[in-house]
């Protein structure tokens, strides 16, 4: 989803405080909107609630009782079954793929964004145009040649096979967001760095990097989520169970234990848990980063 963040993500942190201070109060209540809002909350939460409580039921228990009531004698057997099905391996694979793609992707995107902002040359303009065009390419459409390239590089069925295209597909959006952020850095700061005799390379790390840290975090979270949840690349570029990432493992696990609904749902909870924990920690960053760009 969300393959395009519009241009002004960079300015939001500065805008935010003033915006929230002038909160608007409306006289009459918006009943229809309120109803829709709360109704939708119920629709969002009921399946999640059902997933969580069911994952703690035994299979016999699950068939016997009201599906919306939590079990009186919760069990963690389902989680044990999931963990015994090599989920640690899949978890580590997912972690390697995510970290291994996001760190290089964000770093090289950051360098490219800096070059695009600092250079006035025509070459950089066309590089920027190329990246912008990349925003409109649907990943799936390029999967067959990517598969061919990965085979020719003899990387098929390795984690690197997932990492390399993931880096490439994280670049367009990252460059767009980061370039907008770097553009907001006052020109005088760059000028004073230059007067002090700093090279562009030093300016990049000493000046631009610390000042763009919020955008770097947002871009990392956004891309990290996309790679962690990615399904198509692992599906096509790997084969053996030892190379499986979590989303792929979920799919095969359902194929294997389809009838054991509580166990399947335990696998869903278990694969989502790390993201929810990260969400609880970095919620503010994520929410402002993802929605701010669209809402101006």
């Amino acid at each position: 989803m969300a393959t395009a963040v519009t241009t002004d993500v960079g300015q939001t942190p500065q805008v935010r405080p003033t915006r929230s201070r002038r909160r608007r109060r409306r006289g009459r209540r918006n009943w229809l909107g309120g109803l829709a809002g709360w109704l939708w909350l119920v629709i969002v939460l009921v399946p999640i609630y059902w997933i969580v409580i069911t994952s703690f039921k035994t299979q016999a228990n699950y068939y016997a009782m009201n599906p919306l009531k939590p079990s009186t004698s919760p069990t963690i057997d389902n989680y044990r079954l999931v963990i015994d099905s090599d989920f640690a391996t899949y978890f580590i694979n997912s972690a390697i793929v995510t970290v291994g793609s996001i760190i290089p992707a964000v770093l090289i995107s950051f360098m490219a964004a800096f070059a695009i902002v600092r250079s006035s040359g025509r070459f950089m303009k066309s590089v920027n145009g190329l990246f912008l065009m990349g925003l409109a390419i649907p990943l799936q459409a390029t999967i067959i040649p990517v598969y061919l390239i990965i085979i020719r590089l003899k990387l098929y069925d390795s984690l690197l096979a997932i990492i390399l295209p993931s880096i490439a597909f994280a670049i367009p959006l990252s460059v767009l967001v980061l370039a907008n952020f770097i553009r907001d850095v006052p020109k005088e700061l760059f000028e004073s760095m230059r007067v002090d005799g700093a090279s562009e390379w030093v300016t990049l790390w000493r000046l631009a990097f610390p000042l763009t840290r919020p955008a770097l975090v947002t871009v990392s979270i956004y891309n990290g989520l996309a790679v962690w949840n990615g399904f198509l690349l692992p599906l096509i570029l790997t084969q053996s169970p030892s190379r499986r990432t979590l989303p792929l493992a979920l799919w095969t696990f359902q194929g294997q234990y389809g009838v054991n609904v509580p166990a399947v749902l335990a696998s869903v909870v278990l694969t989502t848990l790390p993201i929810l924990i990260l969400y609880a920690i970095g919620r503010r960053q994520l929410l402002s980063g993802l929605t701010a760009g669209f809402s101006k």
Partner: protein
Amino acid sequence: MTAAVRGASRTGTSRAGRTGSVTWMALPALVFFIAFGVLPLLGVLGLSFTRWDGIGAIHPAGFDSWRKVLVDPGLPHALYVTFLVMILSWLVQTPASILIGVFLASHARYRGVLAVLFFIPLLLSSAAIAVAYKALLDPNFGLGAGLQIGFLSQDWLGEDKLAVGVVVFIVSWQFIPFHSLIYQGAVRQIPRSMYEAAEIDGAGRIRQFWSVTLPQLKYTIVTSSTLMVVGSLTFFDLIFVLTAGGPGDATRVLALDMYKTGFQANLMGPASAIAVILVLVAFALAIILRRIGGGGAADSQLEGA
């Protein structure tokens, strides 16, 4: 390509050395993007003129793949399903998102709580969502069967129309919260004075919504719709895990058609042709939506503010 690059970089370096010293910083990203983005995009066009089973040698085959794909009734069907899912999910999501967004914008107290909970579906992988809903909707073991409510225990994924409806519902479940938050931000940007003026003119709340709120949201609607429409081309994961295109071909969208043709029937040539069509559809939609928006995203942002 290479000629252009060489020519351009020469003008870059000649510029007092300043720009030349940063140009190389863009190269790692450029190399990666060309290798795994641009090259595959050109490659898919090239492969559509070949015969390849995915393992053996690649043979040139002229227009064979294209002829095969264009006469296959599977293509119009896949296009139909793709656009059906796209349009239905837009029709469900847009009014609901605007309504909820307007509500959230005016009730700051609940907004924080709702925003936190609303975001959860967006964090889950499409595979996890599909796996969970597949269990939830199971006619024998799912939620409906357990509650013993007849209406809920239909064979949701076993009938054509129901399966399409389920896909649209799950997509809405996943993304309405996100779009609501976009609209909420936009509504809060509308100057208070416009509502005051409308009130002085005697406009009621409903009239205010149609005459002030909605026109002011124009550019946000374009942005949000662009995300929905272009995003709908990427529902592959969800549909693949949920129905695998079934029942029959009822939910076989373009991306799924490509996957099944290429990686299950081992016809990479025709699959590449389908992929080219997918790219063309994506580009065409992006251009059309940009036209409707009246210029680029940057312009619309400024005008909207």
